[in-house]
């Protein structure tokens, strides 16, 4: 495989496209596509892959088994798509060896779908394309190739119009036209803050400098968000193509992808993609035979949330402690090693090839007045269908939770959805019908954030959750500025007191004052937004704080210090089930006699409560 010219790339694309079209229309081949993202592998996708191999061999069936990235159906991993002539493509969930055996026997040989594992809808309705069908709740632009192509094959990416945008930028567009196109599209940074991408590029382009850099922020530190990992694993070339486009536009020759060391598979797939792109002459010297040269290297993060902040991230790439510095100057003007640097996050990058390829008019037709395009959310927590979803901006939370997410687990009551992670806030039931965009979420005290969306039910305590986020922020504070370092710790201590029933009303007031002070006086985004969970939960759930303070009770039954398990004498039949399950042996009592829990020994694990069939254990 030698370096390609523009003509050769175009020819390759046509050949591959025709090949795939023929394969699909003739419907002669059997294909089994296994989702092998990190989630899939964790759930056993590699065993599934082997099982299919064995099954096909043992039946002497000639079929193709391939891998793909995340289909977004994390709750049912391992997921598998099966294409058989004469039948609609079907997606199966929870496919283990046994399921693989049945799928081969029933679906592939007997041509009857295996109802126990199959999704109700045909695959085309689940892995929706960028088709403009408004009846579908989801719309995949960023995830367009995830779960569709083999992420380790550059040819499959090229066949889906991959690198067509780069071609256009190199041979047909001026730098100003590219920036104009992004500006018309209305693309805003998907890392959370929503800064217009075209402006960042423009600043960097307009600075005179001997060297400029392009950086991809793949240091996805927000707990509960994993769309960047899935994009890098499922469609690595989209990031490379976009960064190369930016290099050409602003005049940079070197790009860096700063990625979490905790994402080994994403690192492998990116490295593999970089090698392939170099082979094809899509990275390196004289790209596609033009005068433009650009290359990309990976730099590994080392577990510091603050490195999501631009200036801290750059310090980390430079091999230093990831401490932020005050802005301005902004990295767009003075960034990596003091040179002008464009930094965007993975999701932002993944949008760009599509915007260039399909045009800004198409992109800006999607979304709301102020926020165009789509947003990927990692929908998790107490939700039935947890997974990775992509919806047009302006979709309501109700559609996300009930139509896509399938409602709350175990039929429990929805309490709140948390977006923006440790920097965000909660969205309560009364706001379920607000169309989601940057402004609307901010107006109700939350934020878009990077896309973690965690659903909480009646069993989740808001004081406890807030304490969880503060613990995170305190741990991640770099310690450079006092408001964040000391303020965060003090807030955490107060929350800890309240969760133990030792808080006072003065504490609550102090918490509010401290939160305001941190927001105003902290040096960087981490400290400024760390109090957001406090403000938001006090705003919407103050009565829960008051219950902890005044009544020494945790209404959700989550704060262990305010919880006790007692045996209701009238209901206890002395079956000994609770005593047997107790891990610390603190339940005593003879058979057929009333039992008792030794409160001084009880660790409040709740196992006795779950085990008792007679409702004889009271939690409260």
């Amino acid at each position, binding site marked *: 495989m030698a370096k390609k010219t523009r003509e050769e790339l175009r020819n390759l694309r046509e050949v591959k496209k025709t090949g795939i079209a023929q394969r699909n229309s003739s419907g002669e081949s059997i294909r089994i596509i296994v989702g092998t993202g990190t989630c899939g592998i964790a759930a056993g996708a590699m065993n599934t892959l082997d099982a299919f191999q064995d099954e096909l061999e043992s039946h002497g069936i000639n079929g193709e088994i391939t891998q793909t990235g995340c289909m977004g159906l994390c*709750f049912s991993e391992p997921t598998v798509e099966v294409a058989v002539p004469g039948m609609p493509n079907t997606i199966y969930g929870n496919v283990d060896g046994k399921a693989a055996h049945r799928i081969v026997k029933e679906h592939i040989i007997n041509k009857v779908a295996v109802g126990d594992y199959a999704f109700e809808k045909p695959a085309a309705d689940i892995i929706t394309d960028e088709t403009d069908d408004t009846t579908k709740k989801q719309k995949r632009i960023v995830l367009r190739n995830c779960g569709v192509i083999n992420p380790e094959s550059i040819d499959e990416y090229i066949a889906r119009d991959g690198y067509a945008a780069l071609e256009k930028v190199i041979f047909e567009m001026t730098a100003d036209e590219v920036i104009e196109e992004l500006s018309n599209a209305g693309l805003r940074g998907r890392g959370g803050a929503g800064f217009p991408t075209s402006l960042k590029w423009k600043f960097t382009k307009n600075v005179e400098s001997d060297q400029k850099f392009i950086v991809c922020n793949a240091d996805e530190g927000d707990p*509960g968000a*994993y769309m960047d990992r899935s994009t890098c694993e499922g469609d690595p070339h989209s990031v490379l193509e976009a960064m190369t486009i930016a290099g050409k536009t602003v005049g940079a020759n070197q790009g860096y992808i700063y990625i979490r060391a*905790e994402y080994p598979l994403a690192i492998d797939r990116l490295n593999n993609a970089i090698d392939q792109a170099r082979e094809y002459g899509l990275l390196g010297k004289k790209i596609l035979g033009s005068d433009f040269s650009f290359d990309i290297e990976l730099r590994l993060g080392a577990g510091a949330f603050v490195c999501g902040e631009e200036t801290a991230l750059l310090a980390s790439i430079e091999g*230093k402690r990831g401490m932020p510095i005050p802005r301005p100057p902004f990295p767009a003007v003075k960034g990596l*090693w003091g040179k002008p640097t464009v930094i965007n996050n993975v999701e932002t990058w993944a949008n760009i090839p599509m915007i260039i390829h399909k045009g800004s008019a198409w992109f800006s037709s999607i979304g709301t007045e102020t926020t165009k395009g789509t947003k990927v959310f990692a929908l998790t927590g107490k939700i039935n269908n947890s997974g990775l979803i992509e919806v047009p901006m302006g979709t309501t939370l109700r559609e996300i939770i009930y139509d896509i997410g399938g409602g709350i687990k175990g039929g429990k009551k929805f309490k709140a959805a948390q977006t923006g992670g440790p920097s965000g806030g909660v969205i309560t039931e009364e706001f379920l019908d607000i169309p989601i965009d940057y402004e609307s979420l901010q107006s109700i005290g939350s934020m878009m954030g990077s896309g*973690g969306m965690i659903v*909480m039910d009646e069993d989740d305590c808001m004081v406890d959750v807030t304490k969880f986020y503060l613990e995170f922020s305190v741990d991640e504070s770099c310690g450079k500025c006092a408001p964040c370092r000391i303020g965060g710790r003090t807030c955490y201590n107060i929350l800890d007191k309240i969760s133990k029933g030792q808080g006072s009303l003065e504490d609550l007031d102090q918490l509010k004052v401290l939160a305001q002070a941190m927001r105003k006086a902290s040096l960087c985004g981490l400290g400024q937004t760390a109090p957001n969970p406090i403000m938001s939960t006090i705003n919407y759930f103050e009565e829960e704080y008051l219950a902890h303070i005044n009544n020494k009770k945790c209404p959700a039954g989550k704060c262990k210090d305010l919880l006790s398990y007692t045996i209701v004498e009238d209901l206890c039949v002395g079956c000994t089930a609770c005593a047997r399950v107790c891990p610390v042996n603190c339940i005593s009592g003879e058979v057929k006699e009333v039992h008792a829990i030794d409160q001084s020994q009880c660790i409040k694990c709740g196992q006795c409560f779950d085990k008792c069939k007679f409702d004889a254990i009271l939690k409260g």
Partner: protein
Amino acid sequence: MTTIAGKEKMLTPEIEAFIEKWKGKPGNLIMVLHRVQEEFGYVPRDAAFEVAEALGIPVAKIYGVITFYHFFKLSKPGRNQIAVCMGTACYLNGGQDLIDECERILGVGLNTVTEDGEFSIEAVRCIGCCGLAPVLTLNGEVFGKVNTKQMRRIIQQFEGK
């Protein structure tokens, strides 16, 4: 092979070759430390001194970086490393209960190694498998949708291996 202090060299030839490759590139320190930890499971003190010498930077700067980032360890972990995810989804779905149960089974607290050096437990940041919460990894192998009752069996799989 000896260093100036007269001790056996810690860095393997492979790591030295890696350092050589990266030496000219700016911002190489974190990549080198990753390579060292990959080899030893942590960054041994002697290795840090050797890296300082090889890269020509002060040891203080190296320790500044190691202690800043959560990923780098200064002490040797257990032969089997249990990492319980404490991302938000895992936390809500009972991550803390898994840690409590682990501590009870192994008789050691977080970030400590059992006396026989077999196991160590740590709480880690989101590993991005939120759909399978709560999640833990044992020597990098991911276990999803874990409950406290499965804990003992999971640990036993690795015991003495």
